[in-house]
């Protein structure tokens, strides 16, 4: 049973993305294959050099950097969304893979879960 978790909202404006990340880590902790796909404004999760101190929040970049340690298999970003926000792969946290087709990506998993 492989699961793709899709985050389509920017970080910091809501807790839904953080809670979707917790779901992903939880699957990985129970040895269930899990991957993350960031689309639309959600690609901002992957920016390097985030400083959330002024917001009084913890940087999501640090959370995401722990993904591979928790056993999350892939961190994927929609290439079209990245282009729209002028984010090149070198702006994104290491380990990110760009995908050209959301449809083909989704097709590779047994189930897909959207952040609420």
């Amino acid at each position: 049973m492989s699961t793709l978790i899709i985050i389509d909202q920017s970080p910091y404006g809501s807790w839904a993305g953080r809670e979707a990340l917790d779901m992903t880590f939880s699957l990985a902790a129970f040895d269930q294959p899990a991957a993350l796909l960031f689309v639309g404004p959600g690609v901002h999760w992957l920016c390097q050099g985030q400083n959330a101190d002024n917001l009084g929040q913890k940087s999501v970049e640090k959370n995401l950097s722990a993904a591979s340690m928790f056993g999350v298999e892939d961190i994927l970003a929609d290439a079209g969304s990245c282009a729209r926000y002028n984010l090149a792969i070198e702006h994104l946290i290491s380990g990110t893979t760009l995908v050209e087709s959301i449809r083909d990506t989704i097709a590779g998993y047994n189930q897909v879960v959207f952040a609420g």
Partner: protein
Amino acid sequence: MPDTLGYTFVITGAPWTTQAPQSALSVARAVLAAGHRIDRVFLYGEGVHLASSLASPPSDEHNWPHLWSAFLTEHEISAVACIASALRRGIVDPKEQARYELESSNLRSPFEIAGLGEWVEGNLKSDRVLYFHGAN
């Protein structure tokens, strides 16, 4: 495919903020009416507000926490509020009240507080997992 399917429901939208609990209850009734099974209802994120015993809407409005708890009790369906989501939002059972030395508890029966492992289990054991999100 078996004739009877087992479902896990995941509700992430709060009552009165979103229609998610209402939609989920309608689907839940339809699922049982069609002869299927609901293995578990899992409240996550804002959805944990559905487990509040303190919600007190005006008497001419539906009380979604009450309607849901009555449905769950009648059909003996397991219902879990995610512990991390619940504690953040002030949904607390007596055990967590004692642990965090809080003034009161407010978890509505038959909801229980447990971890995301219950959701992972639903993914593995249920034939279908349905998500009821609030609109963003």
